[in-house]
Protein backbone atom coordinates (compact mmCIF):
# COMPACT_ATOMS: atom_id res chain seq x y z
CA UNK A 1 0.00 0.00 0.00
CA UNK A 2 1.19 3.51 -0.86
CA UNK A 3 2.55 5.40 2.12
CA UNK A 4 0.54 8.42 3.16
CA UNK A 5 -2.59 7.38 1.34
CA UNK A 6 -4.97 10.31 1.28
CA UNK A 7 -8.77 10.38 1.63
CA UNK A 8 -9.52 10.82 -2.08
CA UNK A 9 -7.02 8.10 -3.06
CA UNK A 10 -8.43 5.73 -0.44
CA UNK A 11 -11.91 6.34 -1.86
CA UNK A 12 -10.67 5.47 -5.38
CA UNK A 13 -8.84 2.31 -4.26
CA UNK A 14 -11.97 1.09 -2.52
CA UNK A 15 -14.10 1.97 -5.54
CA UNK A 16 -11.89 0.04 -7.97
CA UNK A 17 -11.67 -2.89 -5.52
CA UNK A 18 -7.89 -2.57 -5.28
CA UNK A 19 -8.35 -2.77 -1.53
CA UNK A 20 -11.12 -3.40 0.98
CA UNK A 21 -12.10 -1.53 4.08
CA UNK A 22 -11.04 -4.51 6.20
CA UNK A 23 -7.60 -4.58 4.54
CA UNK A 24 -7.13 -0.82 4.99
CA UNK A 25 -8.31 -0.96 8.59
CA UNK A 26 -5.91 -3.80 9.40
CA UNK A 27 -3.00 -1.90 7.85
CA UNK A 28 -3.75 1.17 9.93
CA UNK A 29 -4.28 -0.80 13.15
CA UNK A 30 -0.84 -2.33 12.58
CA UNK A 31 0.72 1.08 11.94
CA UNK A 32 -0.86 2.41 15.15
CA UNK A 33 0.67 -0.49 17.08
CA UNK A 34 4.10 0.25 15.63
CA UNK A 35 3.82 3.94 16.52
CA UNK A 36 3.15 3.42 20.21
CA UNK A 37 5.99 5.81 21.03
CA UNK A 38 4.15 8.75 19.49
CA UNK A 39 1.27 8.30 21.99
CA UNK A 40 -1.28 9.56 19.44
CA UNK A 41 -4.23 7.45 20.58
CA UNK A 42 -5.94 7.37 23.99
CA UNK A 43 -8.13 4.47 22.91
CA UNK A 44 -7.76 2.17 19.89
CA UNK A 45 -11.14 0.59 19.13
CA UNK A 46 -9.78 -2.24 16.97
CA UNK A 47 -12.70 -4.62 17.38
CA UNK A 48 -15.37 -2.07 16.55
CA UNK A 49 -13.28 -0.74 13.64
CA UNK A 50 -12.91 -4.18 12.05
CA UNK A 51 -16.59 -4.83 12.58
CA UNK A 52 -17.53 -1.54 10.88
CA UNK A 53 -15.04 -2.25 8.06
CA UNK A 54 -16.62 -5.65 7.42
CA UNK A 55 -20.06 -4.05 7.24
CA UNK A 56 -18.72 -1.46 4.80
CA UNK A 57 -17.25 -4.14 2.53
CA UNK A 58 -20.60 -5.93 2.60
CA UNK A 59 -22.41 -2.71 1.65
CA UNK A 60 -19.99 -2.31 -1.24
CA UNK A 61 -20.68 -5.84 -2.48
CA UNK A 62 -24.39 -5.18 -2.29
CA UNK A 63 -24.15 -1.79 -3.98
CA UNK A 64 -25.59 -0.04 -0.92
CA UNK A 65 -22.79 2.44 -0.18
CA UNK A 66 -23.51 5.18 2.33
CA UNK A 67 -21.17 7.58 0.46
CA UNK A 68 -18.29 7.44 -2.01
CA UNK A 69 -15.96 7.42 1.00
CA UNK A 70 -17.61 4.45 2.68
CA UNK A 71 -15.02 2.30 4.46
CA UNK A 72 -12.19 4.82 4.94
CA UNK A 73 -10.50 4.59 8.37
CA UNK A 74 -10.15 7.85 10.28
CA UNK A 75 -9.12 8.97 13.77
CA UNK A 76 -11.35 10.96 16.14
CA UNK A 77 -10.20 13.49 18.74
CA UNK A 78 -11.05 12.24 22.23
CA UNK A 79 -13.33 15.23 22.69
CA UNK A 80 -16.21 13.87 20.57
CA UNK A 81 -18.64 11.66 22.47
CA UNK A 82 -18.75 8.22 20.87
CA UNK A 83 -21.44 5.74 21.87
CA UNK A 84 -20.05 2.84 23.92
CA UNK A 85 -16.45 3.98 23.33
CA UNK A 86 -14.58 5.68 26.16
CA UNK A 87 -14.43 9.47 25.79
CA UNK A 88 -12.07 11.22 28.18
CA UNK A 89 -11.19 14.72 26.86
CA UNK A 90 -7.71 13.54 27.96
CA UNK A 91 -8.73 14.29 31.55
CA UNK A 92 -8.51 12.14 34.63
CA UNK A 93 -11.95 13.38 35.68
CA UNK A 94 -13.52 11.64 32.63
CA UNK A 95 -11.09 8.72 32.53
CA UNK A 96 -13.93 6.19 32.99
CA UNK A 97 -16.66 7.92 30.95
CA UNK A 98 -18.45 5.84 28.31
CA UNK A 99 -21.08 7.94 26.52
CA UNK A 100 -24.48 6.47 25.80
CA UNK A 101 -24.85 8.65 22.72
CA UNK A 102 -22.96 9.71 19.60
CA UNK A 103 -21.91 13.31 18.83
CA UNK A 104 -23.45 14.75 15.67
CA UNK A 105 -20.01 15.08 14.03
CA UNK A 106 -19.13 11.42 14.54
CA UNK A 107 -22.70 10.36 13.66
CA UNK A 108 -22.28 12.23 10.34
CA UNK A 109 -19.08 10.24 9.77
CA UNK A 110 -20.87 6.98 10.57
CA UNK A 111 -23.67 8.00 8.18
CA UNK A 112 -21.02 8.40 5.45
CA UNK A 113 -19.66 4.92 6.25
CA UNK A 114 -16.33 6.11 7.69
CA UNK A 115 -14.59 3.73 10.08
CA UNK A 116 -13.23 5.11 13.37
CA UNK A 117 -9.91 3.56 14.43
CA UNK A 118 -10.09 5.11 17.88
CA UNK A 119 -9.84 8.22 20.02
CA UNK A 120 -6.94 10.62 19.59
CA UNK A 121 -4.95 12.20 22.40
CA UNK A 122 -5.31 15.95 22.93
CA UNK A 123 -4.65 18.60 25.54
CA UNK A 124 -6.91 18.18 28.57
CA UNK A 125 -10.36 19.58 27.69
CA UNK A 126 -8.66 21.04 24.56
CA UNK A 127 -6.76 23.55 26.71
CA UNK A 128 -3.20 23.83 25.47
CA UNK A 129 -0.93 24.34 22.46
CA UNK A 130 1.56 21.52 23.07
CA UNK A 131 -0.51 18.42 23.92
CA UNK A 132 1.42 18.34 27.20
CA UNK A 133 -1.60 18.97 29.41
CA UNK A 134 -3.09 15.53 28.55
CA UNK A 135 -3.62 13.16 31.50
CA UNK A 136 -2.38 10.43 29.17
CA UNK A 137 0.97 12.08 28.56
CA UNK A 138 2.24 14.21 25.67
CA UNK A 139 1.98 13.24 22.00
CA UNK A 140 5.31 13.24 20.15
CA UNK A 141 5.51 15.00 16.81
CA UNK A 142 6.54 12.54 14.07
CA UNK A 143 8.81 15.28 12.72
CA UNK A 144 12.32 15.75 14.12
CA UNK A 145 14.81 18.51 13.52
CA UNK A 146 17.70 17.55 11.23
CA UNK A 147 20.03 19.03 13.87
CA UNK A 148 18.85 17.19 16.96
CA UNK A 149 17.26 13.97 18.10
CA UNK A 150 15.08 15.71 20.68
CA UNK A 151 11.36 14.96 20.67
CA UNK A 152 9.16 17.82 19.50
CA UNK A 153 5.62 18.86 20.42
CA UNK A 154 2.94 18.26 17.76
CA UNK A 155 1.14 21.44 18.85
CA UNK A 156 -2.28 21.36 20.43
CA UNK A 157 -4.85 20.93 21.45
CA UNK A 158 -5.59 18.53 18.53
CA UNK A 159 -2.00 17.21 18.77
CA UNK A 160 -2.91 13.54 18.46
CA UNK A 161 -5.18 14.27 15.48
CA UNK A 162 -2.43 16.13 13.62
CA UNK A 163 0.42 13.76 14.56
CA UNK A 164 -1.64 10.69 13.56
CA UNK A 165 -2.29 12.12 10.09
CA UNK A 166 1.36 13.20 9.66
CA UNK A 167 2.61 9.76 10.76
CA UNK A 168 0.01 8.08 8.51
CA UNK A 169 -1.73 6.28 11.37
CA UNK A 170 -5.10 7.12 9.80
CA UNK A 171 -6.23 8.51 6.44
CA UNK A 172 -7.61 11.70 8.01
CA UNK A 173 -8.79 12.87 11.41
CA UNK A 174 -11.24 15.06 13.29
CA UNK A 175 -10.12 17.89 15.55
CA UNK A 176 -11.63 20.90 17.29
CA UNK A 177 -10.44 24.51 17.23
CA UNK A 178 -11.27 27.03 19.98
CA UNK A 179 -8.28 29.35 19.54
CA UNK A 180 -6.10 27.54 16.98
CA UNK A 181 -6.33 23.92 18.13
CA UNK A 182 -6.66 22.56 14.57
CA UNK A 183 -4.48 25.04 12.66
CA UNK A 184 -1.50 25.27 15.04
CA UNK A 185 -0.93 21.48 15.25
CA UNK A 186 -1.55 21.19 11.48
CA UNK A 187 1.16 23.79 10.98
CA UNK A 188 3.57 21.94 13.33
CA UNK A 189 3.05 18.61 11.54
CA UNK A 190 2.92 19.53 7.84
CA UNK A 191 -0.79 18.71 7.55
CA UNK A 192 -3.86 20.62 6.37
CA UNK A 193 -6.19 21.89 9.11
CA UNK A 194 -9.53 23.61 8.52
CA UNK A 195 -11.42 25.61 11.14
CA UNK A 196 -14.90 26.20 9.70
CA UNK A 197 -17.19 29.18 10.30
CA UNK A 198 -18.76 29.12 13.77
CA UNK A 199 -22.11 27.36 13.37
CA UNK A 200 -21.16 25.31 10.28
CA UNK A 201 -20.48 22.14 12.23
CA UNK A 202 -22.69 21.02 15.09
CA UNK A 203 -21.23 21.18 18.60
CA UNK A 204 -23.74 18.64 19.94
CA UNK A 205 -21.95 15.85 21.77
CA UNK A 206 -18.57 17.56 21.55
CA UNK A 207 -17.22 18.12 25.05
CA UNK A 208 -17.48 21.88 25.55
CA UNK A 209 -14.52 24.14 26.30
CA UNK A 210 -15.64 27.67 25.24
CA UNK A 211 -19.03 27.34 23.59
CA UNK A 212 -18.98 30.61 21.64
CA UNK A 213 -15.62 29.73 20.06
CA UNK A 214 -15.49 25.92 19.72
CA UNK A 215 -15.73 24.52 16.20
CA UNK A 216 -14.90 21.06 14.88
CA UNK A 217 -13.00 20.51 11.64
CA UNK A 218 -10.84 18.11 9.63
CA UNK A 219 -7.08 17.53 9.75
CA UNK A 220 -5.96 15.94 6.50
CA UNK A 221 -3.12 15.31 4.05
CA UNK A 222 -4.49 17.50 1.23
CA UNK A 223 -6.89 20.38 0.63
CA UNK A 224 -9.20 18.07 -1.36
CA UNK A 225 -9.36 15.74 1.65
CA UNK A 226 -10.25 18.69 3.90
CA UNK A 227 -13.07 19.65 1.50
CA UNK A 228 -14.38 16.06 1.46
CA UNK A 229 -14.32 15.49 5.22
CA UNK A 230 -15.66 18.98 5.94
CA UNK A 231 -18.59 18.27 3.60
CA UNK A 232 -19.34 15.10 5.58
CA UNK A 233 -19.35 16.72 9.03
CA UNK A 234 -20.98 20.10 8.20
CA UNK A 235 -24.66 20.95 8.14
CA UNK A 236 -27.52 22.16 10.29
CA UNK A 237 -28.29 20.21 13.43
CA UNK A 238 -31.53 20.88 15.32
CA UNK A 239 -29.78 19.68 18.49
CA UNK A 240 -27.35 22.64 18.47
CA UNK A 241 -29.17 25.96 18.80
CA UNK A 242 -26.16 27.85 17.40
CA UNK A 243 -25.93 25.58 14.36
CA UNK A 244 -26.34 27.53 11.11
CA UNK A 245 -29.37 26.85 8.93
CA UNK A 246 -27.36 27.67 5.78
CA UNK A 247 -27.39 24.92 3.15
CA UNK A 248 -24.10 23.11 2.92
CA UNK A 249 -22.38 23.10 -0.43
CA UNK A 250 -20.59 20.41 -2.43
CA UNK A 251 -17.21 21.66 -1.30
CA UNK A 252 -15.22 18.90 -2.99
CA UNK A 253 -16.93 18.88 -6.39
CA UNK A 254 -16.99 22.67 -6.50
CA UNK A 255 -13.24 23.04 -5.90
CA UNK A 256 -11.83 25.48 -8.44
CA UNK A 257 -8.27 26.50 -7.88
CA UNK A 258 -8.18 29.66 -9.96
CA UNK A 259 -7.19 32.81 -8.04
CA UNK A 260 -7.27 35.13 -11.05
CA UNK A 261 -8.49 38.56 -10.05
CA UNK A 262 -8.76 37.66 -6.38
CA UNK A 263 -7.65 40.21 -3.82
CA UNK A 264 -5.44 38.80 -1.07
CA UNK A 265 -4.96 40.97 2.01
CA UNK A 266 -1.64 41.13 3.85
CA UNK A 267 -2.26 42.53 7.36
CA UNK A 268 0.54 44.74 8.64
CA UNK A 269 -0.06 43.71 12.29
CA UNK A 270 1.14 40.16 11.57
CA UNK A 271 4.55 41.43 10.45
CA UNK A 272 7.10 41.17 13.23
CA UNK A 273 10.84 41.18 13.71
CA UNK A 274 10.35 38.19 16.00
CA UNK A 275 9.10 36.05 13.13
CA UNK A 276 11.72 33.45 12.16
CA UNK A 277 13.39 34.30 8.84
CA UNK A 278 12.24 31.03 7.28
CA UNK A 279 8.60 31.74 8.21
CA UNK A 280 8.91 35.27 6.85
CA UNK A 281 10.39 33.85 3.62
CA UNK A 282 7.60 31.27 3.28
CA UNK A 283 5.03 34.04 3.72
CA UNK A 284 6.79 36.22 1.11
CA UNK A 285 7.12 33.30 -1.31
CA UNK A 286 3.43 32.54 -0.99
CA UNK A 287 2.53 36.16 -1.72
CA UNK A 288 4.64 36.01 -4.90
CA UNK A 289 3.12 32.69 -5.85
CA UNK A 290 -0.43 34.00 -5.54
CA UNK A 291 0.52 37.13 -7.43
CA UNK A 292 2.04 35.17 -10.31
CA UNK A 293 -1.09 33.00 -10.40
CA UNK A 294 -3.15 36.12 -11.03
CA UNK A 295 -4.14 37.38 -7.58
CA UNK A 296 -3.69 40.95 -6.43
CA UNK A 297 -1.96 41.65 -3.12
CA UNK A 298 -3.46 44.36 -0.91
CA UNK A 299 -1.66 45.82 2.10
CA UNK A 300 -4.22 46.18 4.86
CA UNK A 301 -4.69 46.56 8.58
CA UNK A 302 -6.48 44.62 11.31
CA UNK A 303 -5.87 47.18 14.08
CA UNK A 304 -7.01 45.05 17.02
CA UNK A 305 -4.93 41.96 16.20
CA UNK A 306 -2.70 42.30 19.25
CA UNK A 307 -5.73 42.72 21.54
CA UNK A 308 -7.17 39.37 20.46
CA UNK A 309 -5.04 37.12 22.66
CA UNK A 310 -5.75 38.90 25.99
CA UNK A 311 -9.44 39.10 24.95
CA UNK A 312 -9.43 35.36 24.30
CA UNK A 313 -7.86 34.71 27.71
CA UNK A 314 -10.85 36.36 29.35
CA UNK A 315 -13.66 34.93 27.22
CA UNK A 316 -12.38 31.34 26.85
CA UNK A 317 -11.64 30.75 30.58
CA UNK A 318 -14.92 32.46 31.54
CA UNK A 319 -16.91 30.09 29.34
CA UNK A 320 -14.74 27.15 30.42
CA UNK A 321 -15.25 27.80 34.13
CA UNK A 322 -18.99 27.66 33.52
CA UNK A 323 -18.89 24.64 31.17
CA UNK A 324 -16.63 22.62 33.47
CA UNK A 325 -18.85 23.20 36.52
CA UNK A 326 -20.67 20.01 35.50
CA UNK A 327 -17.71 17.83 36.50
CA UNK A 328 -18.41 17.38 40.17
CA UNK A 329 -18.34 13.63 40.82
CA UNK A 330 -22.13 13.21 40.70
CA UNK A 331 -23.32 12.32 37.21
CA UNK A 332 -20.26 10.85 35.49
CA UNK A 333 -16.51 10.55 35.75
CA UNK A 334 -14.47 9.89 38.88
CA UNK A 335 -15.42 10.78 42.44
CA UNK A 336 -13.20 11.44 45.45
CA UNK A 337 -15.10 10.90 48.68
CA UNK A 338 -15.35 13.78 51.16
CA UNK A 339 -16.88 14.39 54.60
CA UNK A 340 -19.76 16.26 53.00
CA UNK A 341 -21.11 17.24 49.58
CA UNK A 342 -18.96 20.39 49.15
CA UNK A 343 -15.79 18.59 50.19
CA UNK A 344 -16.62 15.79 47.75
CA UNK A 345 -16.96 18.35 44.92
CA UNK A 346 -13.70 20.06 45.84
CA UNK A 347 -11.70 16.89 46.23
CA UNK A 348 -13.05 15.37 43.01
CA UNK A 349 -12.21 18.47 40.99
CA UNK A 350 -8.78 18.91 42.60
CA UNK A 351 -7.78 15.34 41.83
CA UNK A 352 -9.62 15.14 38.49
CA UNK A 353 -8.37 18.28 36.75
CA UNK A 354 -4.77 19.00 35.73
CA UNK A 355 -2.91 22.24 36.47
CA UNK A 356 -3.70 24.10 33.22
CA UNK A 357 -7.41 23.33 33.44
CA UNK A 358 -7.46 24.47 37.08
CA UNK A 359 -5.65 27.69 36.14
CA UNK A 360 -8.25 28.45 33.48
CA UNK A 361 -11.19 27.64 35.75
CA UNK A 362 -9.73 29.93 38.43
CA UNK A 363 -9.10 32.76 35.94
CA UNK A 364 -12.56 32.29 34.44
CA UNK A 365 -14.17 32.39 37.87
CA UNK A 366 -12.15 35.49 38.72
CA UNK A 367 -13.17 37.48 35.62
CA UNK A 368 -16.82 36.52 36.12
CA UNK A 369 -16.87 37.22 39.85
CA UNK A 370 -18.74 40.09 41.41
CA UNK A 371 -16.85 43.37 41.01
CA UNK A 372 -14.77 42.17 38.06
CA UNK A 373 -17.45 41.08 35.61
CA UNK A 374 -17.81 44.43 33.83
CA UNK A 375 -14.12 45.29 33.96
CA UNK A 376 -13.02 42.01 32.40
CA UNK A 377 -15.79 39.97 30.83
CA UNK A 378 -17.97 42.73 29.35
CA UNK A 379 -14.85 44.66 28.34
CA UNK A 380 -13.55 41.59 26.48
CA UNK A 381 -16.87 41.10 24.73
CA UNK A 382 -16.73 44.71 23.56
CA UNK A 383 -13.21 44.26 22.21
CA UNK A 384 -14.46 41.12 20.51
CA UNK A 385 -16.88 43.39 18.62
CA UNK A 386 -13.96 45.59 17.55
CA UNK A 387 -12.00 42.54 16.33
CA UNK A 388 -14.99 41.30 14.36
CA UNK A 389 -15.55 44.73 12.90
CA UNK A 390 -11.88 44.82 11.73
CA UNK A 391 -12.51 41.67 9.71
CA UNK A 392 -15.88 42.89 8.39
CA UNK A 393 -14.24 46.01 7.06
CA UNK A 394 -11.32 44.04 5.62
CA UNK A 395 -13.60 41.71 3.68
CA UNK A 396 -15.21 44.68 1.96
CA UNK A 397 -11.85 45.14 0.21
CA UNK A 398 -10.28 41.69 0.00
CA UNK A 399 -11.37 38.12 -0.80
CA UNK A 400 -9.01 36.46 1.65
CA UNK A 401 -6.21 37.22 4.08
CA UNK A 402 -2.84 35.46 4.12
CA UNK A 403 -0.72 35.16 7.29
CA UNK A 404 1.68 32.68 8.89
CA UNK A 405 -0.20 30.06 10.98
CA UNK A 406 2.18 30.16 13.94
CA UNK A 407 5.02 32.36 15.20
CA UNK A 408 7.45 29.39 15.18
CA UNK A 409 7.81 25.83 13.95
CA UNK A 410 7.54 22.85 16.33
CA UNK A 411 9.70 23.12 19.48
CA UNK A 412 11.15 20.59 21.89
CA UNK A 413 8.81 18.91 24.38
CA UNK A 414 11.26 19.70 27.18
CA UNK A 415 11.59 23.34 26.14
CA UNK A 416 8.18 24.70 26.97
CA UNK A 417 8.41 28.02 28.85
CA UNK A 418 7.36 27.92 32.51
CA UNK A 419 5.29 31.10 32.27
CA UNK A 420 1.82 30.12 30.92
CA UNK A 421 1.48 33.42 29.03
CA UNK A 422 4.57 32.54 26.93
CA UNK A 423 2.85 29.30 25.87
CA UNK A 424 -0.35 31.20 25.07
CA UNK A 425 1.60 33.28 22.52
CA UNK A 426 1.66 30.21 20.22
CA UNK A 427 -1.89 31.05 19.24
CA UNK A 428 -1.36 34.73 18.53
CA UNK A 429 -2.09 34.36 14.77
CA UNK A 430 -5.01 31.96 15.10
CA UNK A 431 -7.05 33.33 18.03
CA UNK A 432 -8.50 36.44 16.27
CA UNK A 433 -10.24 34.14 13.77
CA UNK A 434 -12.20 32.30 16.49
CA UNK A 435 -13.26 35.54 18.14
CA UNK A 436 -14.61 36.74 14.77
CA UNK A 437 -16.22 33.34 14.08
CA UNK A 438 -14.83 33.19 10.53
CA UNK A 439 -13.19 30.23 8.74
CA UNK A 440 -9.45 29.71 8.25
CA UNK A 441 -7.16 26.97 7.00
CA UNK A 442 -3.52 26.12 7.68
CA UNK A 443 -1.62 24.51 4.83
CA UNK A 444 1.99 23.29 4.77
CA UNK A 445 4.13 25.48 2.51
CA UNK A 446 7.83 24.74 3.06
CA UNK A 447 10.28 23.39 5.61
CA UNK A 448 12.54 25.60 7.70
CA UNK A 449 16.34 25.31 8.10
CA UNK A 450 15.79 22.45 10.59
CA UNK A 451 13.64 20.60 8.05
CA UNK A 452 10.46 21.28 10.07
CA UNK A 453 7.18 22.21 8.38
CA UNK A 454 5.99 25.81 8.17
CA UNK A 455 2.25 26.38 7.85
CA UNK A 456 0.53 29.37 6.31
CA UNK A 457 -2.96 30.52 7.20
CA UNK A 458 -5.65 31.67 4.79
CA UNK A 459 -8.74 33.42 6.18
CA UNK A 460 -12.04 34.31 4.49
CA UNK A 461 -15.34 35.83 5.52
CA UNK A 462 -18.07 33.80 7.28
CA UNK A 463 -19.44 30.88 5.26
CA UNK A 464 -16.90 31.40 2.47
CA UNK A 465 -15.18 28.05 3.02
CA UNK A 466 -15.47 27.27 -0.69
CA UNK A 467 -13.39 30.29 -1.60
CA UNK A 468 -10.98 29.44 1.23
CA UNK A 469 -10.51 25.87 -0.02
CA UNK A 470 -10.15 27.09 -3.62
CA UNK A 471 -7.30 29.45 -2.77
CA UNK A 472 -5.68 26.83 -0.54
CA UNK A 473 -5.81 24.36 -3.43
CA UNK A 474 -4.18 26.89 -5.73
CA UNK A 475 -1.30 27.30 -3.28
CA UNK A 476 -1.06 23.55 -2.66
CA UNK A 477 -1.00 22.68 -6.38
CA UNK A 478 1.61 25.32 -7.18
CA UNK A 479 3.99 24.74 -4.28
CA UNK A 480 3.66 20.95 -4.41
CA UNK A 481 4.79 20.42 -0.79
CA UNK A 482 5.44 16.69 -0.51
CA UNK A 483 7.67 16.30 2.57
CA UNK A 484 6.78 13.59 5.05
CA UNK A 485 8.52 12.80 8.33
CA UNK A 486 11.07 9.98 8.41
CA UNK A 487 9.39 7.05 10.15
CA UNK A 488 11.91 6.72 13.01
CA UNK A 489 9.21 5.48 15.39
CA UNK A 490 8.67 2.17 13.58
CA UNK A 491 10.12 -0.67 15.59
Amino acid at each position, binding site marked *: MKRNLNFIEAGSLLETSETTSVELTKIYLEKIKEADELNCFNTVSAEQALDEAEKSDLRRQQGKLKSRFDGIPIGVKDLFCTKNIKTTASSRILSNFIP*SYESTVTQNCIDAGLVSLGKLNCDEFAMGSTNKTSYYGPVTNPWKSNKSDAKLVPGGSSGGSAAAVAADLCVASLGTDTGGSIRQPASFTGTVGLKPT*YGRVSRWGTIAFASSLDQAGPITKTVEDAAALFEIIAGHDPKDSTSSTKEKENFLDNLNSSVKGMKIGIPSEFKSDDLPLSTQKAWDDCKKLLQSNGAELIDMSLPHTMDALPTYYIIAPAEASSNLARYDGVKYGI*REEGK*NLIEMYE*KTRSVGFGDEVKRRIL*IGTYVLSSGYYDAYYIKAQKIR*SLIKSDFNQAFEKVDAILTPSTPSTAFEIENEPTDPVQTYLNDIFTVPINLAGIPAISIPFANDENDLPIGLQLITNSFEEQKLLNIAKNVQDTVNYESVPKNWWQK
Partner: protein
Amino acid sequence: MKFDKDSLYKLGKLSKIQIDESKLKSLSSDLGSIIEFIDRLKSIDTENVDPTSNSLDQSLVMREDIASDVNTANEILENAPQKELDFFSVPKVIE
Protein backbone atom coordinates in the same frame (compact mmCIF):
# COMPACT_ATOMS: atom_id res chain seq x y z
CA MET B 1 -0.63 41.85 40.16
CA LYS B 2 -0.10 39.14 42.79
CA PHE B 3 -2.75 36.95 44.34
CA ASP B 4 -2.35 36.60 48.11
CA LYS B 5 -3.19 33.46 50.05
CA ASP B 6 -6.66 34.63 51.09
CA SER B 7 -7.76 35.66 47.60
CA LEU B 8 -6.52 32.35 46.16
CA TYR B 9 -8.45 30.38 48.79
CA LYS B 10 -11.55 32.48 48.08
CA LEU B 11 -11.21 31.81 44.35
CA GLY B 12 -10.75 28.11 45.11
CA LYS B 13 -13.96 28.09 47.16
CA LEU B 14 -15.89 29.81 44.35
CA SER B 15 -14.50 27.33 41.80
CA LYS B 16 -14.91 24.28 44.07
CA ILE B 17 -11.23 23.47 43.69
CA GLN B 18 -9.01 22.81 46.70
CA ILE B 19 -5.91 24.96 46.58
CA ASP B 20 -2.87 22.90 47.48
CA GLU B 21 -0.74 24.80 50.00
CA SER B 22 2.49 23.66 48.35
CA LYS B 23 1.35 25.22 45.08
CA LEU B 24 0.29 28.63 46.46
CA LYS B 25 3.45 30.38 45.30
CA SER B 26 3.49 29.07 41.74
CA LEU B 27 -0.26 29.55 41.36
CA SER B 28 -0.01 33.13 42.58
CA SER B 29 2.70 33.90 40.08
CA ASP B 30 0.96 32.09 37.16
CA LEU B 31 -2.41 33.73 37.74
CA GLY B 32 -0.69 37.06 38.38
CA SER B 33 1.06 36.89 35.05
CA ILE B 34 -2.19 36.02 33.22
CA ILE B 35 -4.05 38.91 34.90
CA GLU B 36 -1.20 41.27 34.01
CA PHE B 37 -1.51 40.09 30.41
CA ILE B 38 -5.28 40.62 30.20
CA ASP B 39 -5.04 43.95 32.04
CA ARG B 40 -3.52 45.38 28.84
CA LEU B 41 -7.06 45.72 27.54
CA LYS B 42 -7.94 48.37 30.13
CA SER B 43 -6.46 51.15 28.02
CA ILE B 44 -8.62 50.38 24.96
CA ASP B 45 -11.51 52.76 24.37
CA THR B 46 -14.74 50.75 24.23
CA GLU B 47 -17.15 53.62 24.80
CA ASN B 48 -20.21 53.13 22.54
CA VAL B 49 -19.18 49.60 21.56
CA ASP B 50 -21.73 46.82 22.03
CA PRO B 51 -20.51 43.51 23.44
CA THR B 52 -20.45 40.39 21.19
CA SER B 53 -21.39 37.15 22.90
CA ASN B 54 -21.74 35.04 19.79
CA SER B 55 -20.29 35.65 16.33
CA LEU B 56 -23.18 34.15 14.42
CA ASP B 57 -25.57 36.60 12.71
CA GLN B 58 -28.55 34.38 13.37
CA SER B 59 -30.88 34.10 16.32
CA LEU B 60 -30.91 30.83 18.22
CA VAL B 61 -32.72 28.09 16.37
CA MET B 62 -35.60 26.34 18.13
CA ARG B 63 -36.60 22.77 17.44
CA GLU B 64 -39.81 20.87 17.84
CA ASP B 65 -40.19 19.48 21.34
CA ILE B 66 -40.50 15.82 20.46
CA ALA B 67 -39.77 13.04 22.93
CA SER B 68 -37.09 10.54 21.95
CA ASP B 69 -35.79 7.42 23.60
CA VAL B 70 -32.06 8.23 23.62
CA ASN B 71 -30.29 8.93 26.90
CA THR B 72 -32.69 6.99 29.07
CA ALA B 73 -32.30 7.01 32.86
CA ASN B 74 -30.67 3.59 32.89
CA GLU B 75 -28.11 4.53 30.25
CA ILE B 76 -27.27 7.77 32.00
CA LEU B 77 -26.94 6.14 35.42
CA GLU B 78 -24.41 3.69 33.98
CA ASN B 79 -21.83 6.46 34.29
CA ALA B 80 -22.79 7.60 37.78
CA PRO B 81 -20.06 7.12 40.39
CA GLN B 82 -22.79 6.18 42.89
CA LYS B 83 -26.48 5.48 42.39
CA GLU B 84 -29.44 4.26 44.38
CA LEU B 85 -32.61 3.04 42.68
CA ASP B 86 -33.13 5.50 39.79
CA PHE B 87 -31.17 8.32 41.40
CA PHE B 88 -27.68 9.77 41.59
CA SER B 89 -26.41 9.34 45.10
CA VAL B 90 -24.37 12.01 46.97
CA PRO B 91 -23.10 12.46 50.55
CA LYS B 92 -25.84 13.34 53.03
CA VAL B 93 -26.68 17.07 53.30
CA ILE B 94 -28.05 18.23 56.70
CA GLU B 95 -28.80 21.88 57.32
